């Protein structure tokens, strides 16, 4: 089995939004729509005793994606390699998956009448390239690979991170993306 996944090392992320724009270019996303956004978590505290980190957010490519369960046309589906995709030929734009997504990472592209979201650059993964946001990240904060391969970079990163590996709140969907944060308190 393969399980393609992304790990983001938040200690390396400088919140420069380069990934967000790289993604827009790579995937030809409409203006006003993002697959990938960088949130600023903080600053917490009072000046000058502050703490913050940046949180790049994409589709979590959950292990048990609720968006797939609820999609009436099976346009949302999970591939063998773990990537969750939307087949635009089938998507009727009912937006039910947006309701089912715990993280607000799906969006309805009004112009196209379909759901848009991070594809983990599946078209690149298929030709053995990493997603655009991974390849250009100025902090090299993103790691991409196969979690089921114990020798992959992601597997190593997950092992090394230990208890510093964080995930978004799980409501049964088992989010896939992992966030490493050692230097600050995880608050997301």
């Amino acid at each position: 089995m393969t399980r393609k996944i992304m790990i983001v090392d938040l200690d390396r992320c400088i919140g420069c939004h380069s990934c967000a724009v790289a993604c827009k270019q790579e995937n030809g996303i409409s203006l006003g729509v993002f697959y990938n956004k960088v949130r600023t978590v903080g600053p917490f505290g009072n000046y000058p005793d502050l703490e913050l980190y940046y949180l790049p957010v994409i589709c979590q490519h959950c292990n048990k994606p609720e968006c797939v369960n609820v999609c009436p046309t099976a346009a949302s589906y999970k591939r063998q390699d773990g990537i969750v995709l939307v087949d635009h030929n089938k998507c009727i734009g009912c937006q039910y998956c947006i309701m089912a997504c715990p993280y607000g990472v799906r969006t309805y592209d009004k112009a196209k009448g379909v759901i848009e979201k991070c594809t983990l650059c599946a078209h690149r993964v298929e030709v053995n390239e990493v997603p655009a946001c991974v390849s250009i990240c100025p902090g090299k904060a993103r790691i991409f690979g196969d979690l089921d391969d114990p020798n992959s970079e992601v597997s190593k990163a997950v092992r090394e991170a230990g208890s510093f590996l964080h995930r978004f709140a799980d409501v049964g969907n088992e989010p896939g993306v992992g966030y490493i944060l050692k230097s600050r308190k995880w608050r997301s």
Partner: protein
Amino acid sequence: MEIQWTLLIFSLFVSLGMGSFAIVAITELRGIMPGIRLPGAITSLAALGIGSAASYFHLGHPEKIFHILGNIRSGIAQELIVTSIASAVIFVYTVLLWKDSAPDVRRKLALVGLILSPVVPFATGRIYVLAARPAWDTWLLPLMYVASAAVLGAFTMYLWIMLREPDQKTLATVNKAALLGQVAFTVTIAAYLIYVAMAPHPHSSRSVARLLTGDLALLFWGAVVLIGQLGPLFLTWRNMQGPPTSLQAGVPVSPASGGISGAVAATAENRLILAIMGLLCALVGSTAIRMIVYLIGSSVQSYIY
């Protein structure tokens, strides 16, 4: 999340249609009040039509709807299927009624329709039962939608009955039905609120405080409670008292509902006006609670949108 008006209209009118048809079906099965069946059935069909049209406009690509059977486990697919079946049943029933033929078939169709009448609103409410949105993740929500359908149906049919000069027995029955529906609605709303208060992943956007004292207080207390619950309750109670003969009927009113009841008493020269007021109150109440459901329907964590 933002109010999804197309979906709201869909669920409101489908509920109204199914609620209305339930009463039509009851009259058919029990052989009473034949005069209201045709207007009732047509109202029901029309409501389903309006609801379906709204859902059509909700879709980005309705032309691809044939893919809908791609995932039968999906709440939306189920909702669409039961709505379609119900619409077909009611349509055939209405045609037969129009032609005044095949009474046996009609009775069977009425029975099917009666069974479907809580199922369809339940299905429309069920799609909201999602773990991603803590304020929705309860079966009380679809139950509330069923109760809402009962109220909407009762007050819709009330109007038709009033237009047909009903006898006292019919009136008493319908009054009872409306009262029951309304009480069920109030109870499910109360139960739902208790759930929301205890829901996991608490957040200010989906707190009960937002309803009771926050930015949604006016919508909740005014539209849901006062107009949506107390209004119909009061009107039903008024109806049960028999026709008001004059202003001096002197109904004792509570201070809280004094404004409305005063106005009602002043203008309620006949039951028709009471019926219209009742339907309006039911519509306002059912719309407002649906609006609230959307407004407190924030996801566990919302990052991009």
